């Protein structure tokens, strides 16, 4: 998966997004087995239109059913039909969240607290803060929580407070 190309295209199309999930955790803390890029996007019509342009450039595919899997349409209205989409792209798997459990309706607050960083190739991105990553994990059903991630995040937050 070419994560840099996914992030670069989203930034190029001026998509308002936060990197969340395993990639965001990996870039700041510990390697964790993850095969997709998770992003949380600002949920408004203009941003979804920009996101759709980026998805077209990335060669994204999605379908209401497996049989209907196809390149995403040029009209962004399909992005309003549900809260989360798991897509294929020419550069790897991409999960798009219009809202995130544990942080519902707080995209702008989370973006303000977001951590700005660059990948090793120099691609800039904003990632969910440690506190918000922890809130996400704690909002999951117990069987879906990643205990190691929770432990590492708690330690990182404690260390940051101690500085």
């Amino acid at each position: 998966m070419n994560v840099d190309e996914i992030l670069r295209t989203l930034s190029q199309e001026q998509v308002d997004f936060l990197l969340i999930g395993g990639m965001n955790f990996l870039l700041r803390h510990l390697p964790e087995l993850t095969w997709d890029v998770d992003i949380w996007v600002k949920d408004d019509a203009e941003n979804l239109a920009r996101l759709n342009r980026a998805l077209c450039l990335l060669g994204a595919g999605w379908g209401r059913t497996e049989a209907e899997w196809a390149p995403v349409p040029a009209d962004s209205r399909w992005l309003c039909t549900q809260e989360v989409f798991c897509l294929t792209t020419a550069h790897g798997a991409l999960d798009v969240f219009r809202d995130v459990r544990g942080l519902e309706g707080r995209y702008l607050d989370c973006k303000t607290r977001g951590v700005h960083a660059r990948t090793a190739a120099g691609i800039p991105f904003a990632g969910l803060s440690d506190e918000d990553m922890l809130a996400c994990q704690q909002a999951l059903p117990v069987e879906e929580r990643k205990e190691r991630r929770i432990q590492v995040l708690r330690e990182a937050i404690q260390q940051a407070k101690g500085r």
Partner: protein
Amino acid sequence: MNLSALKKQEERKREAAYAPATRWQHIQQTITWAEANLPPHLRRNRPRTAKVLPITTGTRQPVRS
């Protein structure tokens, strides 16, 4: 449908739609990318200081062939 169920359904659909060869190629690329993007303290081949060995006082004997 709640969010967890929707996410699982989406993942199942994508898994079925992913061309296996492309999927495998993406997985290999992800491993390479992840290795290059680890936090600095976890990177391999990172600068390290030489390990300091204890100084011994014994006299080295020449190796006889």
